[in-house]
Structure formats: structure tokens, C-alpha cells
């Protein structure tokens, strides 16, 4: 311990002797690290596993069932029709399954009818949604089945916002002028990236405010605000006929998620889909080539091409920038050590062992790491700020947790060591006599 | 060869003025081997630097080979140095990243010689100092005496009119010092004027003229008989 303090003191003195070169080295290193960290932060949030305890069992299903003779259309649409969803449901293979889409509406409480309604984000879905994605309930519970009912589950924030408290099970709410009863309130919950709905590159958006039964939404003609594709639909726009029309045509807006607990189940479900397509084809439907997709939740961004390409490009560039900075810093630190070489040699001549010099170098690394880490965090924060203001849809991705911070700190130490390694070796292992002679 | 009249040099800091050289008059004739001695701080190095045009002076005049150096531009002074003066330093002052060959060639490049001419001269001067076989060595691979011989080769390669040597043997042991001195005498015999700063009375005695400097003033410069020439 005392040796460490002594070594740190020596490091500090050698910095003080030539502060400008040291400051420049540190500046360059932390600029590179900062840029890299800011990008890595976004990259981490965009690509992490948001639900590691069961991500292996969650799959999104797609089927190439839309009409048309196109023989080289192998890629199924991103969203499916109500008819597809019905055929896929109830296979008995899944341990949970839910169809869903997003929408929005204006909501207010019954007590406060005169108030200006506030806009709320809706997730139109089915009973198993909460089970699929491990969504925690604070009060109440999900719907007993998938039938239409004027009942909603709301987020904790929504409860607080509209009722100023959380225990509001049994309360009524007006959503787009319709009266609903609250049957459940969720606990704090977020999913980043929001992999259950990445269509439209919205994976960085927050989870929704209100969860509404799918059948009810069809009855009330609540449509998806993400993607709503009509294939060969002949409809006059009369809203009274919408529920019937949307359930019996290729009005594609649903994403369908299933939980398959084992590889065997996955196999079985794939076979199930295959059989389904065969039956359909036999019935003269499903005219496009078979193109069933069962994408694991961790692959879904790639499958729907919802990755942020700009971020990827920037990642490439930021890594190269880090390389430049590291190379630069080690170049500068080599110069620094060379300048100190005489002193090093002198100390060795006075009897310091290589090990003692190495521990001096480690003290250097330690000191540099601490300074570089702090500076890098500042630059990273600046970087995130810049990126957030320049690239759309990255705002939710800019925070750090302790785990990330410790990984970053470790990384800084590693890089600082790398930067110092060659110069240090060169200084402490080059022949003694030659240096003293100069 | 060298003529200085009433030359003075003053070092000024904010507080004090130091008269490094006071009203010096000196004439060094062609072909002389002059030794300049004096205690530390007496101004002998300053005089040598002024003579070598490495430092300017404040009063008086200095004629090198009949030409006044007063008022010459940096470029003219540099050219003058390059053509007429060869330097030999106590610390050798070889460029350590260069091979012996490159070191000796450097002033010839400044002179603008063709590469064939440079090659001829470098080889000839390496021959003179007896290091022809090591032309591709780097200074760090040589002993001190050898390094000083390289420095001498560099100084004479341009066939200067005068060699200025600042304690050329100061860093060498006696054997090596003798070799270097013999080399300088040989060069002198070939017609090159030499002015050498030294603190070693034996060496001063080997020169054919002894100039003493004390407190920036020259003591009556007297001619020595070349006592130990060739010894």
C-alpha cells in the first residue's frame, strides 16, 4: 500500500514535470473513448436482450398468405390478417400466444368529462400478452379470455396521471368517447429495445399506456397506427361494416407472438404451420409460395429490417476513431516514456528491479485510467447529447447503469494499459548501458 | 585568416550585463595551429562560438578570410560556416539516427555538391580518419575516440579554411586523445588552420601558438616553439 502511494506520487510528479504533453495524451485518449462509449451505449440498448430469462422461447410468427400469384414473393408481409391469426391460434403447442398492434386515442376520466382529453398510446392485444413478456401487475389481472369486453389494463404512470393513485381497478375511463372499466394496473415496466413491436423502427419507444382487448378494437374499428395493409379489399368506407370486413379480408395489421418452451415445441410448431399452409393450398388459398417465418425475439429486428443503419455506420466509424486515438495516445506516451528513459535507467542503475519499475508503470496506468475514465464519461455524455439531437429515435437509449459503467471502467483500464504497454516494456527492458551512455 | 578588432560581446539579462569578451584583438594566420586556453568562464567557448559565427557580437569587427561577417544575413552566415569553417565539439555531436556516411555527407549536401562529388569527399575523409570500413555504422556502435574521428572527418570533408575545435579530447581517455591530436596535427600539416580550445597544458604545448583568455580579455598571445611536435 505504501509502495503504491509512493508510486502514485512519482507518477504525479512526472505528470507535473510536463503537464501539456500528458494533458494532450489524456485528451486524445478520452476523446476516442468518449465517442466510442456514446456509440456503444446506444448500440448496447439497441441490441441487448431485454428479457434474458425467456428470450429463447419467444417467437414472432409470419405467414406468406396474402393473395396474388407472385411466384417469387418468398418474404411474408410484416403484419398478418385476422384470418391468419385465427388459424394460428389454439394449436395447443404454445404455452402462451397473443396477437397485437399499436394505436392511439384520446382518454379522460368519467369524473372529469369536461377536461381536454390527453392522447394515450394503445396496445391492442390478447390475454397472454402479459404472460409472454413477463409484464408485472401491481393491481388486478389480465382478461379471463380473448373475447371482446370493455375492459382495459393500464400502466402505473397512466393510473397516476388520470386518477392520481395506482389502485384504480374497477374505475371507469373514457377512451375515444367509449366507456371502459380498468381491470388491471401494471407495475413499473419497460422493455428496451421494445422487441415485441419493432415495425416502423419504433423499437426505442416506451411501452404503451393502455392495453385494450383485440376483439373490442375490431368491433370499434380501432386501426393500427403502424402498418395497415389492404390486399384486394373492396370496401366502400362505411364504418358500420368495418368489423365484419376487417375480420374476413386481407386487412393485415397484426403481429403474432408465441411462447415455445423447448426446441421440440419449436419443431412441432413449424410443422403445424407447414400443415396449415398445405391445407390452405388444398383449399385454393395461400397462392404465394410457402414462406413461414418463426423468428426468435432476438432476431426480430433484423428480420423486419428495423435496425438503425445510421447507428451501425456510426459504430464502425467510432471504433476506427477509437483506434486512431489509441494509436495516437500510445505514440505520445512512447515519447513521454522516452523522455523519462534517462530517469528510468538511472533508477535501475541504482538498483530498482524490473518488477519495481513495472509497478511504477502500473501506478501510471492506474492514475491515467482514473483521469481518462472521468474525461471519457464527460465526452461520452456530450456525444450522446449530440447523437440524440441529430439521429431520430435514439433518445431513450442514452442512460447508463452500474453494470455498464463498470464495464466501461474496465475497458478504460485495459486501453490505458495497452497504450502504456509498449513504451513501458521498451523503457524498462532496453539495455541499460546504452541508455546511460547517451 | 582570422582577424578581429576591438571585438566585444555582452550577455544581457534583465538585471545584469556580463562582458563575456572585452575589446579583443586577435589575428590568426593561415596554417597556424593555435591553442586557446583559459579558466572556466573566461570566455573561451564564447570566443570560439563568435569565431564560428554561431554567436553574434556587439562591438568591433571580425574578418574571416578577409571578409567582414558583420551584417550578413542568416543565409549568408550559414553558407560561410558551411564553406570555410569546420567544427569539432567535445561531445562529438553526431546525428545518431544517421550512419557515419550520412553524417559526413550532411554539410556537403548543404553545400550543393553533386552526389558523386559528395561520395568522393566522404570516402576520402573517412580514409583520412581511418574509418573507411565502417561507413555504414551508426554513431552508437563506435567508441568515443572513433566518434570524434568521425566528427573530424565531417569537419574536414568540406575542405574548410579553418577548423574550430572545442575541447576535442575532453571526453576521451589518453590513448584516444593522442590519436585525435595526431590526426589534427596531420590535418594542420596539410594546410588547414586550426584553433583549438583546451584546458590541457600538454595539448596547448603541442600547438604552435598559445592564446590565453582571462575574464574576456586576451593575454598577450605568444608564440610557442613547437616543443613536442611529432612526439
Amino acid at each position, binding site marked *: 500500500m505504501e509502495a503504491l502511494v509512493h508510486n502514485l506520487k512519482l507518477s504525479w510528479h512526472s505528470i507535473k514535470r510536463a503537464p501539456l*504533453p500528458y494533458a*494532450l495524451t489524456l485528451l*486524445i485518449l478520452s*476523446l476516442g473513448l468518449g*465517442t466510442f462509449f456514446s456509440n456503444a451505449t446506444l448500440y448496447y440498448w439497441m441490441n441487448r436482450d431485454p428479457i434474458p430469462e425467456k428470450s429463447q422461447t419467444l417467437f414472432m410468427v409470419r405467414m406468406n398468405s396474402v393473395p396474388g400469384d407472385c411466384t417469387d414473393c418468398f418474404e411474408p408481409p410484416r403484419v398478418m390478417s385476422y384470418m391468419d391469426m385465427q388459424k394460428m391460434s389454439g394449436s395447443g403447442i404454445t404455452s402462451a400466444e397473443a396477437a397485437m398492434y399499436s394505436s392511439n386515442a*384520446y382518454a379522460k376520466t368519467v369524473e372529469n368529462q369536461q377536461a381536454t*382529453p390527453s392522447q394515450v398510446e394503445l396496445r391492442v392485444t390478447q390475454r397472454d400478452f402479459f404472460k409472454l413478456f413477463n409484464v408485472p401487475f401491481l393491481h388486478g389481472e389480465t382478461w379471463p379470455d380473448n373475447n371482446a369486453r370493455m375492459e382495459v389494463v393500464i400502466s402505473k404512470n397512466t393510473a397516476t396521471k388520470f386518477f392520481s393513485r395506482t389502485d384504480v381497478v374497477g374505475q371507469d375511463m373514457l377512451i375515444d*368517447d*367509449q366507456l371502459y372499466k380498468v381491470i388491471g394496473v401494471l407495475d413499473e415496466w419497460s422493455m428496451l429495445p421494445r422487441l415485441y413491436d419493432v415495425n416502423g423502427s419504433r423499437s426505442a419507444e416506451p411501452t404503451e399506456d393502455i392495453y385494450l382487448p383485440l376483439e373490442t378494437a375490431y368491433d370499434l374499428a380501432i*386501426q393500427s397506427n403502424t402498418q395497415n395493409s389492404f390486399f384486394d379489399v373492396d370496401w366502400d*368506407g362505411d364504418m358500420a361494416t368495418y368489423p365484419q370486413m376487417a375480420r374476413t379480408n386481407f386487412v393485415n395489421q397484426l403481429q403474432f407472438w408465441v411462447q415455445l418452451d423447448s426446441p421440440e415445441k419449436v419443431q412441432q410448431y413449424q410443422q403445424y404451420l407447414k400443415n396449415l399452409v398445405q391445407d390452405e393450398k388444398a383449399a385454393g388459398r395461400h397462392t404465394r409460395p410457402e414462406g413461414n417465418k418463426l423468428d426468435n425475439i432476438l432476431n426480430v429486428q433484423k428480420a423486419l429490417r428495423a435496425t438503425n*443503419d*445510421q447507428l451501425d*455506420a*456510426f459504430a*464502425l*466509424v*467510432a471504433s*476506427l*476513431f477509437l*483506434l*486512431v486515438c489509441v*494509436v*495516437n495516445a*500510445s*505514440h*505520445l506516451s512512447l*515519447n*513521454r516514456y*522516452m*523522455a523519462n528513459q534517462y530517469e528510468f535507467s538511472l533508477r535501475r542503475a541504482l538498483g530498482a528491479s524490473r518488477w519495481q519499475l513495472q509497478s511504477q508503470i502500473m501506478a501510471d496506468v492506474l492514475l491515467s485510467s482514473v483521469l481518462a475514465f472521468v474525461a471519457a464519461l464527460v465526452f461520452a455524455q456530450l456525444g450522446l447529447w*449530440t*447523437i440524440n439531437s*441529430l*439521429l*431520430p429515435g435514439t433518445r431513450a437509449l442514452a442512460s447508463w447503469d452500474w453494470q455498464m459503467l463498470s464495464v466501461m471502467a474496465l475497458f478504460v483500464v485495459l486501453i490505458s494499459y495497452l497504450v502504456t504497454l*509498449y513504451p513501458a516494456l*521498451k523503457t524498462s527492458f532496453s539495455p541499460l548501458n546504452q541508455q546511460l551512455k547517451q | 585568416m582570422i582577424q578581429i578588432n576591438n571585438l566585444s560581446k555582452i550577455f544581457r539579462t534583465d538585471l545584469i550585463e556580463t562582458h563575456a569578451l572585452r575589446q579583443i584583438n586577435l589575428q590568426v594566420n593561415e596554417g597556424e595551429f593555435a591553442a586557446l586556453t583559459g579558466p572556466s568562464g573566461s570566455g573561451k567557448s564564447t570566443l570560439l562560438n563568435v569565431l564560428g559565427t*554561431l*554567436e553574434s557580437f556587439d562591438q568591433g569587427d571580425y574578418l574571416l578570410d578577409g571578409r567582414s561577417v558583420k551584417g550578413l544575413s542568416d*543565409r549568408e552566415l*550559414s553558407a*560561410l*560556416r*558551411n564553406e570555410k569553417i569546420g*567544427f569539432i*565539439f*567535445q*561531445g562529438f*555531436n*553526431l*546525428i545518431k*539516427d*544517421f550512419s557515419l556516411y*550520412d553524417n559526413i555527407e550532411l*554539410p556537403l*549536401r*548543404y*553545400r550543393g555538391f553533386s552526389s558523386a562529388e559528395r561520395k568522393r569527399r566522404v570516402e576520402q575523409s573517412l580514409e583520412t580518419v581511418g574509418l573507411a570500413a565502417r561507413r555504414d555504422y551508426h554513431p552508437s556502435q563506435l567508441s568515443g575516440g572513433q566518434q570524434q574521428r568521425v566528427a573530424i572527418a565531417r569537419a574536414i570533408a568540406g575542405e574548410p579554411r579553418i577548423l574550430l575545435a572545442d575541447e576535442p579530447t*575532453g571526453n576521451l581517455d589518453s590513448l584516444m586523445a593522442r590519436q585525435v591530436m595526431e590526426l589534427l596535427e596531420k590535418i594542420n600539416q596539410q594546410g588547414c588552420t586550426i584553433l583549438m580550445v583546451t584546458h590541457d597544458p600538454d595539448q596547448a604545448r603541442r600547438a604552435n601558438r598559445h592564446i590565453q583568455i582571462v575574464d574576456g580579455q586576451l593575454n598577450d598571445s605568444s608564440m610557442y616553439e613547437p616543443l613536442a611536435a611529432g612526439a
Partner: protein
Amino acid sequence: MSVFLIIKSLLRRKVVTALLLLQLAVTLGLVVNSLLLASAAKELVDQPTGLSLEQILTVWVKPTSKTLRLQPALTDLISRQLTAVRQIPGVEAADFVNQIPLRQGGSNWNIFERDRQDESNVDSVPYYYTSEQIFQVLGVQLITGRLLTQQDWGIDNILLTEKLAKQLFAEQNPIGKVTNNGTVVGVVSDFYSQRYASHPFYGQIVFGPLHRAEQGYQLIVRVAQGQSEAVRKQLTDVIRNAEPQMDIGTVLRMDENRDDVFRSEIGLATLLSVLSGLMLLVAMISAYSHAHFHALQMQKEVGIKRALGASKARVLLDVLSESWLTTAIGAGFGILVCYGLNISLAKVISIPAVPVWLPLLTMLLLLLCVTLATWYPARIATRISPATATKTL
């Protein structure tokens, strides 16, 4: 000093030189590609749109009450809003439209000539539900046929943009042709319609009421020259006064809509430009500190050279030419890096190929930066008194 000698002395410092070259090479590669992306983004943003960007304001609105979002209330609501908006001083024309040009996303139909579906089908063409003042608002010119009028309200008569008409009917007269979306009665000049449609300049215009406003709709306003800020200030209040139960988006000028559409590209280009600037800065710091660090070592060398007859100018040139040569060699490798990086980036985003002159220009830029950074330490080096420098310590 001769190139040969510089190279020789660089080779004696292999590791330092390798680090320096690597850094210069990567810097050049990154700067070139960033410049390339930035210029591509600028070109994208600056392309002609066929619209008077500064004179068009748009605002997205959506009734917060369900009944107002459906007919017949909707048509009445829109006409109340338009009447109010048209009375604002400085407003030359105003209309509703289901979606505005330039804005990303929106509703598209496919279109084909009835008799030649397979040959003529165009997959994705934005359609504009709107009414009479739209032409004045957009400032589009009639190319052939006639504009739509009140008589075409609710009838399947359509207008096409020029490029779309060319695509569908080539050299034939498009007037009177029957498509799946209606009969073509006219062709208007091209305007930037939707970025990810089959072609950004394809568009089809129909007159008729919106069925419903579940996704809201847009009010689009043509203002007199120089009046856009004055009108913008009042617009939201005027719309709210016409109908309080409205969710009203931000009033945007057309060029702001455009910048929004290209925001990712502009953002990345800006980001990379910032990074390029940083990289040049790092290169300068590196050159500066290199020279600075070597001051001691150089001092002696410079002193020796001065004693041997090198003039100050010559010494300065020596120091600079060393950094020029290093930069040039590094930049030479950098050209390889820049093509390599270009290929890697092209896998992720769309980036133009590297034109030959750009790396050369960047190399000059790099040389300039390095020269600037080396100048000061080099100048100091030449001022060193040779007498001191050659003295043994």
C-alpha cells in the same frame, strides 16, 4: 533533407513511425468517407422539389372527439377550419389534404392502366385526397389536360404528376386513359411526393371527402412571400377557434418537413463531420506533440546542422519535410483504407463511391493541418542557439 535520408531515419524508429502512419491512414479514410456522406446528404436535401418550400405551411390536426372524425361532421369541420384559415392576412390559399408531399410515410395505392395491368402496374404511388385550392398551394403547373374542379368532387377523375404519366403511358396522350383509380383528366408538373414511393416524384390527386380522420389530416397553406412567420404565429389559434376539440400538431414550413424526412441522413452526415473535425484535431495534436516532444532531441540535431552550415530556413524545411513525407506516406496508405471503409459502409448504408480527386484533396487538407501544427514547434527549433545546443552537458 533528401527523401532518402528521411525515410532512413523513419525506419530507425519503426514502431513510432508505424503508429503514426496507421493513424494518418485511418484519419484520411474516415475524413474522406465522412465528407462523402455529408455531400451526399447535402445533395439529397438540396435537390429540387418542385415546391416553393418557404411559402408553404402545413399543420397536422385530428379531432379529439370520435364523432368529429367521421362523416358528415368531418366535412363540415374542415370547411369551417379552411374558411377561418383563408381569412388570415398573408394567406393566399389553403386546403385540406389526407397527406402532404415530402413527408415520410403515408398512404399509397398501386396504379395501372385498366387494359394493361401487368405491363403498366406501378406498386406504390401516394394519393392526395384534397380539393380546389391545392394547385395554388403547391404551385404546380398544368402540363396537359385540365385541372380538377368542383365538378370532379367525389368522382373517380384523377391528376397525375408528369413523371408518373410518362411511366404509365410513355409517349401516348394520357388524357382519357382509364386506370384502376379513375380516369386521367390532366397532368401536372412534378413535385417531391414521397421518398419511399415507387419514385419520389410520383403522385396522384383526387378530389373528394375524407371518409374518416382516424389518423388525422393536414391543413396546407400558401402564404405570400415573406409572410410565413406572421401566419405561422396565428395559425394554431385560428384553427382552435374554429373547433376547440382538436389535437393540433406543430406548424411546419415545407423546408422543415423536408429536413425531417432526411433527418437521419443529415444527422449522420453532421455527426461524421464533427468526428472528422475531431480527427483532424487529433492529427494536429499528434503532429504538434510529436514535434514538441522531440524538441529536446531535435534541439541538438538542429544545433549540429546549424553549426554545419544549414540556414534557419533550411532547418525549418527539414523539420517540415519530415512531417510532410510522413503525412504523405500515411495518406497513401489512407487511400487504401478509404476505399476499404467505403466498401464496408456501403454494406450498412447507402454511400456514393469515392471519386478519385477526393482522397487527394483530403490529403492536401491533412498536409495543411499537419503543417500548421508542426510550424510552431519547428519555428522554435530553428531559434535554438547552435552554440548552446552543441554544448555538452
